[in-house]
């Protein structure tokens, strides 16, 4: 491929060696070596994460924050060390502002429920964008309905970029919170969060950022972004499922009521009155997912070891390569062509339903996501039933892309 050799990813990463860290990548699907292009849904796990979880259960497990015996103390130390690791990973000011949750969905629900109960009144507004995942729409609809508040949606252009003038115009005296994705899971668009936060803060409005698709691909600095809340999921950053992080500015978290009640989140309990624990425990009722936290710590270590800048650089090159090669497919239409994009190629082929394409690619051992990607309003806006989405991680190669392109061409020939 003469056209494409000059944009093939360089030597930013030793991907052949990296792939050996991921046992799943050497398996087959439908009898063919798997081409895994669905990391935006969930990434694969390196051996170090798998080992950390298993080692934890073999040798370190006891409940945290409870026992005076050494085992429990050690488990607590390991658990809290990960909180500090996460703090550093996103450059949060203090580790008490790092709350362990199940994932982004729970992180957003926590803020919608707690912040909403405290600060939303009838007639108030919450502002989101047109490219949000259902997890950053539905929790706001639920609390808005309960409070008689309304949900406003900042529009996008055809390329899938937020229209900044409209966004700014929609920040009103009644806006109590902005909730926006850092990177769109369907389009790959990277939103200008720093500018959005500046606009919102100029009117005294706090901002929650859904970082699910950003944390796996780039260095996140919550202080530089100046975000009030930032949430990401462990399973998308090569860690285990069921664990995630909500960063919140202490000023807000302290003002918000607890989300769940139970053990761990209390200071004193009588049948008449309970007083709550301070941060972060106020928001961590019940026994946490300790093994998940340990696994997340191992995942962060792994990502840092590879290097976030190298990851971003390699993935950008790979995405450019994928986009260029996919253009060879006759009738292809890219959904999401923002100037600033990360790791997602979403597309349709003229006259072909995404489901059909996905079903045939599956038979060829190629894992892509098809459908609406939990962004139905966005699909409605484009007037399409869904897309085929190839999403990349640093363990993907140009060979993966080549097989995808050949697969799509073959499938199109069968379906036309």
């Amino acid at each position: 491929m003469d056209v494409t050799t000059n944009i093939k990813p360089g030597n930013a990463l030793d991907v052949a060696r990296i792939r050996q860290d991921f046992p799943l990548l050497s398996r087959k699907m439908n009898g063919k070596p798997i081409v895994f292009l669905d990391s935006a849904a969930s990434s694969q796990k390196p051996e170090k994460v798998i080992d950390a979880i298993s080692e934890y259960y073999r040798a370190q497990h006891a409940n945290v924050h409870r026992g005076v015996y050494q085992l429990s103390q050690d488990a607590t130390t390991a658990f809290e060390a990960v909180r500090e690791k996460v703090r550093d990973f996103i450059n949060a000011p203090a580790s008490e502002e790092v709350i362990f949750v199940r994932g982004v969905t729970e992180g957003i629900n926590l803020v919608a429920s707690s912040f909403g109960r405290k600060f939303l009144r009838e007639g108030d507004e919450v502002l989101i964008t047109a490219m949000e995942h259902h997890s950053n729409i539905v929790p706001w609809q639920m609390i808005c309905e309960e409070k008689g508040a309304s949900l406003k949606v900042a529009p996008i252009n055809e390329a899938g970029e937020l229209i900044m003038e409209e966004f700014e115009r929609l920040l009103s005296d009644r806006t109590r919170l902005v909730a926006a994705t850092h990177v769109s899971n369907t389009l790959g668009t990277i939103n200008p969060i720093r500018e959005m936060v500046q606009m919102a803060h100029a009117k005294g409005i706090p901002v929650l950022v859904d970082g699910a698709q950003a944390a796996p691909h780039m260095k996140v600095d919550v202080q530089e972004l100046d975000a009030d809340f930032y949430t990401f999921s462990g399973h998308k950053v090569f860690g285990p499922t069921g664990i995630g992080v909500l960063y919140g500015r202490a000023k807000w978290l302290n003002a918000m009521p607890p989300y769940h009640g139970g053990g761990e989140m209390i200071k004193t309990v009588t049948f008449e009155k309970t007083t709550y624990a301070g941060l972060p425990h106020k928001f961590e009722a019940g026994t946490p997912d300790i093994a998940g936290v340990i696994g997340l710590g191992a995942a962060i270590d792994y990502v840092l070891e590879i290097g976030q800048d190298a990851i971003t650089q390699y993935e950008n090159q790979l995405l450019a390569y994928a986009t260029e090669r996919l253009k060879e497919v006759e009738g292809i239409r890219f959904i999401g062509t923002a100037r600033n994009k990360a790791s997602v190629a979403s597309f349709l082929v003229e006259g072909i339903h995404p489901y059909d394409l996905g079903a045939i690619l599956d038979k060829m051992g190629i894992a892509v996501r098809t459908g609406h990607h939990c962004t139905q309003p966005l699909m409605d806006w484009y007037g399409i039933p869904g897309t085929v989405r190839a999403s990349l991680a640093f363990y993907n190669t140009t060979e993966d892309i080549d097989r995808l392109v050949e697969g799509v061409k073959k499938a199109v020939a069968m379906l036309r």
Partner: protein
Amino acid sequence: MLRAETNYKKLSINDIQNEIIEEFSLFGDWMEKYEYIIDLGKSLPLIDEQYKDEEHLIRGCQSQVWLHAEMDNGQVAFTADSDAVITKGIIALLVRVLSHQKPEAVAGADLYFIDRIGLKEHLSPTRSNGLLSMVKQMKLYGLALQAK
């Protein structure tokens, strides 16, 4: 569809299933099988346009299905459609098996052919393409029409 009505009218549900299994055993690999299904999906006009409305829609996450049932000479006649061609091809097979059968036979049908021809993944709940709900709905029609 016309072919199905005339040729298979007198065959039982299981006879037709066995026939399909035999037909599929001739295919060498998955590509031939899928090409056949795609052809089925492309060639058959499966439903009257008037029934492609909200009332007849079975929404899947991945693809959508429209299903209509009516009684014809004591038998249930199904017509259906989908926006995805592979889904539509499988619908053609399901219609061939279940249409123009007695309601009680439809309600009690054991649809083993899908598994035997190696297409069961299309009827898995995780595929969410509307097919599984469609099969349930077809059987419910069988039950409801039996009572009439």
